């Protein structure tokens, strides 16, 4: 049924958010009955494009043609009506109702004004049978595995007459076997003339299941290729290859002895056997795709989550860390990626936030000494150039960059020797970013060991002394400064070439 006709054509689509062009004149076409992979690094614009198609965002510019007619997609309802279905990474089934009810949610067959259960179960059964799937449709959705739930969602989408199904990393939590089952479904959808946009970080899958692929980079359309005409390394080249624009402050620090080492850290789920070490005065970058398990690894090391295996050594001595409190005691600091949810006491004043970890340092005879508190806090406000009218200001009123500096101050005040910085520049402006990099340099100069997680390629190349790349919970590569290149890091991030 592979026809020549396009079901969906996007032309010159633009979307701008304050300060960032998420999509810049993007073209995209989808043929009837094809599987079309959408590829790109973190922040390339894949999600934004998807959200425009689903009606979650409105495009600023450009046209969308669906089935030959120009259309607007102002809302998710409109998108569904056109026949576009999106299968998200997080599943959207309702756990405690049956599969049949999920499939017919909001459109259950009725008889005399009440739900016709018998017909609903029968219809659902037939629907699944038509895809060669044999499941008990009266069971709760939660009783099925993630892969099965995903398939249920896809079939639900198709039954609502979807002509285009968009799948956002559908295989990210599936086993190899389950992936093959999913691919079987995809092929049978294809045979029915349904088109599929397939987003994945696994390059091998693109070559296995897709007909064509489109590459986005930094919100720009890079190109569309037939999968049979391209090699993996050519694809990676298309995905990277931007110029480094940002300047990073220079650092001249003698890297010292090893001061922190972890061995075989696992949680039997998202983190698999991670080992690495970091030296005094060294900035160790952690690169990888979003969801590669970097944050999860750090949470295990810090004691925020429970590890099933693994040891942590500080200055070659094994330490037991089961709770964050113990990490704090061992002088390990953790600047988390979500500062508002995990790093700050938003409504509380700047001073409460800064002293929250090392509160014992402001005591005189067991009693809090507000003079000491003021002196310390003002020192950090000056040193880190935190813009706040006073130490009594609630941090909620500070800008993102200043909030992040408050979080840094909190850990500096606790004299952390090892600092884990998880996406420390997320959501802050360029000026503040540079200041954060300068603080990182100062810390390195003081002989602290820094673990720096970032999903921004330029940043991680510009700031790190050494980079460890993770892919699906494992370390897929380690790159020394002299070998730094986007190509190498990207290859490792996609699991190695």
């Amino acid at each position, binding site marked *: 049924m592979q026809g020549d006709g396009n079901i969906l054509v996007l032309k010159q689509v633009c979307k701008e958010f304050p300060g960032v062009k998420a999509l810049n004149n993007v073209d995209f076409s989808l043929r009837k009955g094809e599987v079309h992979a959408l590829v790109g690094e973190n922040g390339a614009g894949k999600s934004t494009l998807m959200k425009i198609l689903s009606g979650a965002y409105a495009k600023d510019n450009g046209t969308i043609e669906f089935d030959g007619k120009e259309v607007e997609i102002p809302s998710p309802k409109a998108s569904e009506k056109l026949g576009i279905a999106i299968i998200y990474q997080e599943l959207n089934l309702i756990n405690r109702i049956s599969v049949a009810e999920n499939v017919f949610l909001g459109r259950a067959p009725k008889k005399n004004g009440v739900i016709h259960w018998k017909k609903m179960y029968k219809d659902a059964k037939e629907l699944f049978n038509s895809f060669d799937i044999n499941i008990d449709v009266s069971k709760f959705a939660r009783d099925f595995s993630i892969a099965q739930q995903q398939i249920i969602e896809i079939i639900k989408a198709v039954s609502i007459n979807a002509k285009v199904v968009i799948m956002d990393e559908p295989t990210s939590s599936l086993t190899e076997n389950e992936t093959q089952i999913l691919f079987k479904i995809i092929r049978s959808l294809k045979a029915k003339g349904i088109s599929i946009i397939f987003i994945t970080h696994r390059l091998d899958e693109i070559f296995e299941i897709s007909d064509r692929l489109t590459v986005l980079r930094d919100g720009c359309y890079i190109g569309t290729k037939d999968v049979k005409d391209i090699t993996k390394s050519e694809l990676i080249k298309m995905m990277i290859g931007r110029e480094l624009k940002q300047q990073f402050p220079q650092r001249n620090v003698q890297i010292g002895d090893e001061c922190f080492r972890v061995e075989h850290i696992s949680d039997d789920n998202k983190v698999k056997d991670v080992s690495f070490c970091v030296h005094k005065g060294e900035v160790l970058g952690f690169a990888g795709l979003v969801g590669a398990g970097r944050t999860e690894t750090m949470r295990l090391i810090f004691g925020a989550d429970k590890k099933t295996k693994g040891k942590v050594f500080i200055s070659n001595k094994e330490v037991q860390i089961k709770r964050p409190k113990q990490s*704090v*005691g061992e002088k390990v600091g953790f600047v988390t990626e979500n500062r508002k*949810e995990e*790093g700050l*006491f938003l409504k509380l004043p700047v001073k*409460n936030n800064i002293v*929250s*970890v090392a*509160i014992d340092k402001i005591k005189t005879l067991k*009693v809090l000494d507000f003079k000491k508190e003021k002196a310390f806090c003002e020192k950090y406000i000056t040193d880190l150039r935190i813009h706040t009218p006073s130490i009594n200001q609630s941090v909620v009123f500070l800008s993102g960059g200043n909030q992040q500096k408050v979080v840094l101050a909190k850990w500096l005040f606790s004299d952390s020797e090892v600092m884990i910085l998880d996406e420390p520049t997320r959501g802050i402006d360029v000026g503040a970013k540079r200041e954060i990099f300068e603080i990182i340099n100062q810390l390195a100069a003081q002989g602290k060991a820094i673990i720096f997680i970032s999903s921004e390629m330029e940043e991680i190349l510009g700031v790190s002394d050494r980079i460890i790349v993770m892919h699906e919970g494992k370390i897929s590569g380690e790159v020394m400064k002299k070998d730094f290149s986007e190509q190498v890091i990207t290859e490792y991030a996609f699991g190695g070439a």
Partner: protein
Amino acid sequence: MQTKENIMKKNSFFEGINKFVNAMGVWLVVVLFFVILSLTTDTFLSYANLINVVRQICVNALVALGTAYVILGGEIDLSTGNMCAFTGCGTALLMVAGVNMWIAIIIMLIVGSLIGALTGLIVTFLRIPSFIASLGMSYVILGATLLLTNSEPISGLPQSFMTFGRGYIADVVPVPVIILFIFFAIGAFFLKYTSFGRSVISVGENPVAARLSGIDVLLTKILIFAIGGFTASAAGIVLASRLSSGQPMAAGDVGLTAIAAVFVGGTEKGSAMNVLAGAFVLGLVNNGLNLLEVNAYWQKVALGLIIILAVLLDQIRASRAVSVKKK
């Protein structure tokens, strides 16, 4: 830059006003009510009435103090009312059984704290929301009280015991007021000047960030419930002393009034003195409506509306403060 500085100055002026209102907040309302009642009634300013008001407030304010720790720590305790009756009766029973008064009091204070800690354990380790956990505990405590007393008042208490609720120091200052003063001095001190007080406020604001900052969230939560149990027990003993008996059904809605006092006082500032002000507001309203001879049933309606109004005003003030700062 110049204009920006001007704006900053202007903001700090507004902040100044806000700070004053924030600092005085509920105490302003207390003063206002005091003046209104002095002007509208003949009896309010009489010594006998004022003493009466203060004595009534004592029990509520004591319960509210512990409840404030619980609420600031991000939880709620609905069991404090029944806890009052339980410890009041418990102390009475022990004394009737011949136990030394001081030992009876100490035992019941400890028991009350432990029961509070138990609620805390249920909340933290069994992960039952505190609303439900304390509701359940409330019934357990009520049932225990009824079982122990057979639902009858325990009277025949030693004369010296009456001092806590009815005595006077130098024939002028009621003993319960002294107790209240001591409790609030200690309670305010711990909240403001110790790392434990900071932990309570941090945990209440953001338990996730608190844990990641190395604060022992579980222990903090257990302790706030223990403190809630402790002050409720103290209040129960004062109440039993005032009533000269252990009354199984005496506490009524003390627990809920205490929660109201905390919210009327305003939780934003995390100040124990505001809680005291909140208790005063409720006490004055109660007394004022009595003196104005408002129908008792309408009094309840008025009290309810005042609680809602007080918290509403607090929210309006808080959001105005936000919009001033955001400009």
